[in-house]
């Protein structure tokens, strides 16, 4: 359009001026747009750059080095940090523990959360009270939850121990034997997650249009059939969302692990994030910790991608 206007007839003097002005204005607008865009995006780009992109690149860079006792990269070792990690049996055990933990947490959280939501969606007297209780763990901080669960799992005065004694069951050393310790941290994490999951799924269940149930009931569908063929497809976007959020959250779990088991016993609950913390902030081994962070980031990205690729296909919007 500007091209057309910029080739006016020479005799009409005011026209080129107008055209020039037009062009200038359009140019100005264009430039202004860019400035505006930059002005609006700038602050967030700056914040992202300083606090996200720079640390990410720096982590990648550090992961290729050995770091000295004040944390400076001194010896370039290429991918040796990665090779050492992936071939060390301790790190493989940590990967395995993380897999067990993440699967346990995601599956239990979703199943129990859905169960609670399904119960709470019924219109019964006093149901409001239960709805509040079910979502109450959202308001509990990690440290409080850890102390609370530590009391429950304590070997001499714990609730589980007392119940076990009443029923004459063998004493389980919850936090000092590897298998039960993993179960204990999974239970605590699921409990912490439930409030949020319940609330989101409860909201989704309430949004399912009632006529669908009525229509299917007339067709003679059983409640079970209704659940699998009406409810689940209708809430699938929400289920997908919660599964992704829970998965990423489970990979990043730190507080409960630190306070309850500190990675023990025998490294049974030494998840990947905890290993990163140990290497960076206890051992001061930033190169290795960076390599571990990169591996963790890649794994999370991979799982999220897989989820989008496969789970999303089954999601009905």
């Amino acid at each position: 359009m500007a091209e057309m206007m910029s080739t006016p007839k020479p005799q009409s003097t005011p026209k080129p001026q107008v055209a020039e002005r037009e062009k200038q204005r359009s140019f100005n607008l264009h430039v202004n747009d860019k400035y505006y865009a930059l002005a609006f995006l700038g602050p967030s780009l700056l914040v992202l750059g300083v606090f996200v992109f720079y640390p990410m690149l720096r982590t990648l860079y550090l992961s290729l080095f050995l770091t000295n006792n004040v944390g400076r990269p001194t010896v370039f070792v290429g991918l040796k940090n990665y090779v050492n990690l992936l071939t060390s049996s301790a790190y493989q055990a940590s990967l395995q523990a993380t897999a067990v933990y993440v699967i346990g947490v995601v599956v239990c959280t979703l199943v129990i959360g859905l169960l609670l939501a399904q119960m709470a969606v019924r219109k019964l007297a006093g149901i409001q009270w239960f709805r509040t209780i079910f979502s109450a763990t959202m308001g509990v901080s990690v440290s409080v939850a850890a102390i609370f669960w530590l009391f429950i799992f304590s070997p001499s005065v714990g609730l589980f121990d007392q119940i076990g004694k009443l029923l004459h069951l063998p004493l389980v050393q919850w936090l000092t034997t590897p298998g039960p310790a993993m179960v204990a941290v999974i239970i605590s994490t699921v409990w912490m997650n439930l409030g949020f999951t319940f609330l989101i799924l409860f909201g989704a269940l309430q949004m399912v249009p009632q006529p669908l149930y009525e229509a299917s009931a007339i067709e003679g569908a059983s409640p079970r059939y209704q659940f699998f063929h009406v409810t689940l497809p209708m809430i699938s976007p929400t289920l997908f969302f919660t599964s992704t959020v829970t998965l990423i959250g489970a990979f990043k779990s730190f507080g409960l692990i630190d306070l309850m088991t500190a990675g023990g016993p025998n490294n049974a609950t030494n998840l990947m994030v905890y290993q990163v913390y140990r290497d960076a902030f206890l051992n001061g081994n930033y190169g290795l910790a960076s390599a571990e962070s990169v591996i963790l980031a890649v794994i999370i990205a991979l799982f999220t991608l897989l989820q989008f690729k496969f789970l999303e296909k089954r999601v009905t919007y």
Partner: protein
Amino acid sequence: MTHLKGRQRLLALGGLFLVVLAVFVGWSVMSKPAAQAQGAKRTRIVFWHEMTGPAQQQLDTFVKDFNHSQHKYEVVPEFEGNYNEAVQKIINTHGTDASPAVFQSMDISTSQIHHTGYTTPVQKFIDADHYNVNQIAAGARAFYANKGTQLSMPFNTSQPVLYYNETLLKKYHITPPPVNPSYSDITRVATQLMDRSHKQVQGMTVEIYGWLFEQFMANAGVSLANHQDGHAGTPTAVNFTSPSTLTTMKWIQDNLKRGDFVNYGAGANAQNNETASFLSGRLGMFLQSSASIGQLTTGNHDQLGITYYPHPDGQKSNGVAIGGASLWISNDKSAHVQRGAWDFIKYLMTAKSQAQWQVATGYLALNQGSQKEAVLQKLYQKLPATKVPGEQLRAATPNATNSGIFLQGLIQERNLTQTAMEQIYNGSDIKKSLETAEKSMNSYIQGNNRANGY
């Protein structure tokens, strides 16, 4: 109408934001002159420590008294969380305004802190002042010295000791363990406790704790790291599989299998649980830092017995290393500030301060003169057992194997030995578990030495 409401809300939000901003700006502007005004008269000496509970209270009292005792310096104590994390904070803030002038750092960080080159060895001030360093316990000094130079001043110092419930032993007619017990002495008492109480009382526990592992080796006179535990040069390898170490681990494993020893696991939870069991009379003996005395005497109806750390049979005990932390002076502050830091350290090390420190915390009074102080005499009269850790400290002659390990990466060493201990306690092959730990530690040391250019 709604649009107007929205705008009003936006305005209100904006206003609120401005108010918050104004408060912050005002606060930062106001607080600065105040700090400067204080600093104009006295030089600020920022002191980082990691003490909690009664120790923190006593430390705050010392700071207050020191500030009252002179007009040149103002010591500002700042609590920095746990030992492990403090080390990284100290290193990462060096050279900035946020760094401390004097700081407390744990025993096993000694080599690491020294090698950063961020500190002025206290030897410089000892020499300048002709400070009589011999009044400070030799065993404690040796831990924080390298090749004749005192790097830092030992401060809160503990000894690992064996605690036993004397009342419980009397009840079952068991002779208490001797002053300097061997492994078989402990086995005897533990077995008798288990048998005579019909398994109502657990005999003994050894916490899964790398510190205790190191102490077993020290007391057997075995070096953990080569080059004389690093005192003769930078270590290049560790040895976790000496005959004495294997014997020690076998002793614990056999007793665990028999049931006269129990496993309380690792970490703070293990310490809490073993202490709770001991105080409730369900556990007869355990190994722990002498710093626990305070906790074990308050509210304990039974009589507390304390004796030396056990040693392998058929040899004399070599003596154990101390635990705790020392005080360091940063070299990123002016000479005047460093001098103030040293004056504060001297104040903490006086006979009077050290005696008060032991009474308040259970850490040992390191000044020889403290033994004559009235407060300490009174404590000994009330609880004679509290004398034992100090006697153990003075009984040992410092040598390379009982003066700590001068090696970087001891946190890693403890992680690895703890993992090995956990495996051994759960019945794994002793030699294999220790070899795995040894291999990991050696590759860690190699990488670390390479990164630091040793």
